């Protein structure tokens, strides 16, 4: 269940890379921004965390559009991908500094009855937040999948994913598709951020832990692959948790990274990546 939430956060990252060849280092802080937005709506307006997504998702979509228009769209040339790391890191620092000023560095956590509420199934206590988070992630991933594979706009995205030049030649407005994709990629962080903020205490600095995990997920899954992000996220969390319980938490991360190295040795493009290196 936790894996599905990471998948949701990583999906945005892999979508942005797949369409735009941009590595969005700011994805971690955008997740935290989503968590803080849910926090503000909950504490100051009494809006339920899930209902608040109706506000936070569109808000972050707009944030994504603005970031893309003002920063990403200006990146041109062969160094575009590497430059995107620097630019998105700068954006990350700006947002982190702003959040520290607004919310201070004190950690906070989202609260609702389902955060600590549980139900029992097969003798195991399951927290509602993980169950609801899983349903939310599954629903949003399904919607994203439907949009990609059952709509005309989705076909434009997939065409841009495959070959931007060819897509432009057949009349697809690749620039517009890129902008909307960046907006979508950022928008999904709102839901991931909400669930993350309900299951973990956080402040702006938490983003550093997140971005390293999210990048690992999309590298393992194959950069640009939505299905790969889902599988890699579930693999990462499940493998880590099982190792932590049956062996030792100390070996949790090393084991996962050992698996990552083995997979990348055999498939440099990741589990579902189509090419080992993309050309900008």
């Amino acid at each position: 269940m936790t894996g599905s939430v990471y998948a949701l956060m990583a999906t945005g990252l892999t979508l942005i890379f797949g369409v735009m060849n941009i590595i969005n280092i700011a994805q971690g802080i955008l997740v935290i921004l989503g968590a803080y937005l849910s926090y503000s709506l909950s504490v100051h307006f009494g809006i339920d965390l899930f209902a608040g997504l109706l506000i936070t998702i569109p808000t972050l979509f707009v944030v994504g559009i603005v970031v893309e228009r003002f920063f990403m769209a200006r990146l041109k040339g062969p160094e575009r991908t590497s430059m995107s790391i620097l630019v998105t890191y700068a954006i990350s620092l700006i947002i982190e500094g702003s959040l520290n000023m607004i919310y201070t560095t004190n950690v906070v956590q989202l609260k609702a009855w389902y955060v600590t509420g549980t139900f029992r199934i097969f003798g195991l206590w399951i927290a509602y937040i993980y169950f609801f988070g899983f349903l939310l992630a599954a629903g949003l991933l399904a919607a994203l999948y439907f949009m990609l594979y059952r709509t005309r706009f989705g076909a434009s995205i997939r065409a841009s994913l495959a070959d931007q030049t060819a897509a432009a030649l057949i009349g697809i407005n690749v620039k517009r598709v890129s902008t909307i994709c960046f907006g979508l990629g950022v928008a999904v962080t709102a839901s991931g951020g909400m669930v993350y903020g309900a299951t973990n205490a956080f402040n702006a600095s938490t983003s550093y832990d997140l971005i390293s995990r999210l990048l690992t997920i999309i590298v393992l899954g194959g950069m640009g692959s939505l299905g790969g992000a889902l599988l890699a996220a579930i693999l990462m969390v499940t493998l880590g948790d099982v190792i932590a319980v049956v062996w030792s938490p100390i070996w949790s991360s090393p084991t996962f990274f050992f698996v990552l190295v083995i997979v990348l040795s055999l498939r440099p493009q990741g589990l579902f990546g189509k090419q080992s290196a993309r050309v900008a």
Partner: protein
Amino acid sequence: MNRKGRYFRAFGVTSVAVASLAMMMTTSSGAASGTIAKGQPVTIGISLSLSGDFSVDGAAFKQGYQLWADNVNAHGGLLGHQVKLDIVSDASSATQVVTNYQKLISLDHVNLTVGPFSSLLSVPAAKAVARYGYALVEGAGGAPSVFQNGLTNIFDVSMPVKDSLVPFANWIASLPASKRPTTAAYVTTNDAFTEPQIPVAQKIIKAAGVKTSYYSVFPAETTDYTPIADAVAAKKAQIVVLGSVDVPTVSAFMQAFEQAHYNPKVFIATGGPDQGSGFTSVVGIKKANGVMVPNAWYGSATTPGSQAMVAAYVKKYGGSAATVSADVAEAYSVGQVINQAVVATKGFDNAKIIKYLHSGVTLTSVQGPVKFDSLGENNKATAFTFQWQGSKFVQVNPTNNKASKPVLFPKPVW
């Protein structure tokens, strides 16, 4: 390489050498002179973690240092010089902290340096300032590993962390057999601050007949604590000793325990619950009830100067005595020790300050008496155990201390 290129190279190498020499001369003269022109402020260089993993503690340390500087300046300054704090952020990075102190000394020409937050950052910081002959008085670098580097310029005003849990362990051992818990779980992050504390406590508790049902170390970079907490819950130990450094870790374990319907009779965490409102605002007052933490100071401490500091804190930052982080007192104590050393040596000469602090003199601080041994550890510090009881944060151990209140035992359910 042609002749022109060789000239350029020679010129470059010479320039760098001359610049380095000039920098060394400038810095060493600054450190050694120990005098400040009349009317000029005394500048104290500090690297603090204002972002990154230690950002909560870094912010509290900044408050503590600032409160001390405000107090000194309101009373005429340090030997007549107003105190000016030169604070730079290290983002909780052991690399950045070195760069910061080098910059503070060689470019900003600060007169004195005081420590960052955590044992992790205090060691590289002390090594960096030692090259310039500076003393590093700090308040949050009490891990044994800090004092195993052969450094003579580091002084920790707080309690050495190894024995922090001893009063708690002794209390468990002192309980009548009929009331004493029978099983204990120990789980700690692999941090220089937490790890040394656990075996010391375990040894005492085990000797009292309490069986160890779980012992595990988890990496500091862990983000998902649920499987570890679930493993602890599955053992149903009656005591949980958690080696933690921050609020998110404690909060995650408490939440996972509650979700697993697991209620230990005793729950103590080495760091996090001492963060005042920074802790209760995350976990809630009700769930904090009964949670324990070792430390050397709390908001209601009656040590000289403590109440005045708390009053100044509440006036400046709001809250109440119970919500003041122990970090504030640690930073404030650093300032107090520096103050006494400067007054005693009648100047700002770091060599004299280091010699004075090693002289065996007993100093005062809001955390209690300070006396450094040859390694720079404060051997006069006393360990206490504190517990959240309702909205109050009270001292409960050592039980023979007259300021200690009865322990809330067993801990109420979450």
